[in-house]
């Protein structure tokens, strides 16, 4: 006997993610899901971002990590609330993991939550966790061919951070080619070149994030009365 199904395999994750998002919406909090390969510079970028935004926005960080609290410790040094999720080997965060830690956040007093996903360019792209949007960090040493090799995350994200531009002279990374491929894959996406070493481009990144957060904070204030 044949039974028609037509159900999404990740349907239950999507449903939970929507519930998380609804909670963040109620409090008008903008949520960023930050994704990138191991070592691309996600935590470094976050540390710089915190330094520049924490006087303007009330922010908290959720750190996804396989086993350790190394990244969470780095963030805690910057005096912002940070919550650690260990995936115990899992290659991505999922909506249930985020749901479980929501009660640890002081939701009433936040404008921005940044979630650093597990270092991985593939798996996290399919799993919504309740974010408003995704941003992907690609570092220069990974090579300019990566957008077309791992297209999904570049399609899903609304900003690409090309990090470690300070070491461009020592690599064969073709910036024009990278920008071209990313723009074909996702016309109009924000592409921001940064260095967490020299601080180049960090202003542009922080402005992008601040504008996105502000837009939602204001919109939700109106909606929620």
């Amino acid at each position, binding site marked *: *006997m044949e*039974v028609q199904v*037509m*159900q999404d395999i990740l349907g239950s994750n999507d449903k939970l993610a929507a519930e998380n998002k609804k909670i963040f919406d109620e409090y008008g909090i903008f949520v960023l899901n930050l994704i990138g390969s191991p070592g691309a510079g996600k935590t470094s970028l976050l540390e710089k971002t915190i330094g520049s935004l924490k006087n303007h926005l009330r922010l908290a960080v959720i750190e996804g990590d396989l086993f350790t609290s190394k990244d969470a410790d780095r963030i805690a040094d910057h005096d912002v609330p940070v919550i650690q999720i260990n995936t115990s080997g*899992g290659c991505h965060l999922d909506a249930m993991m985020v749901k479980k830690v929501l009660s640890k956040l002081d939701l009433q007093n936040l404008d921005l939550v940044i979630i650093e996903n597990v270092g991985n360019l*593939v798996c996290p792209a*399919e*799993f919504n966790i309740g974010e408003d949007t995704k941003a992907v960090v690609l570092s220069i040493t990974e090579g300019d061919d990566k957008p077309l090799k791992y297209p999904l995350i570049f399609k899903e994200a609304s900003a690409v951070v090309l990090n470690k531009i300070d070491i461009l002279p020592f690599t064969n990374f073709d910036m024009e080619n990278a920008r071209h491929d990313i723009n*074909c894959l996702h016309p109009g996406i924000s592409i921001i070149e940064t260095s967490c070493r020299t601080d180049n481009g960090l202003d542009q990144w922080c402005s992008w994030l601040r504008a996105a957060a502000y837009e939602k904070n204001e919109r939700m204030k109106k909606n929620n009365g």
Partner: protein
Amino acid sequence: MHEMAMAQGVMEIVESYAKKSNATKVRTIALLIGEMTGVVFESLEFCFKATAKGTIAENAEMKLKSIPLIGHCNDCGNESHIENYNFFCPQCGSAKVDIISGRELRVEYLEVD
């Protein structure tokens, strides 16, 4: 290995539909997998075998239907396969091309006894 999470997703769906139709055995699980998804079918199959051990779907065969990545242009209406992940409309150059298929990760149907 997010295919393990996906295999569990398939298992949940299979169990709930098998129960609804009072099945005693699941023979086939037909999947629709889009071209632009982060899943390797072979590893999904492998993970599912492990997940399905001792369940109603043990030894079920997974059937894969790949769904091509198709874009629809909001300016000229062109619908065509997206080549090399270039999302500009091949007919009019517009940047307003939406994905209409190719992102599926779906259980289509089951064959059960």
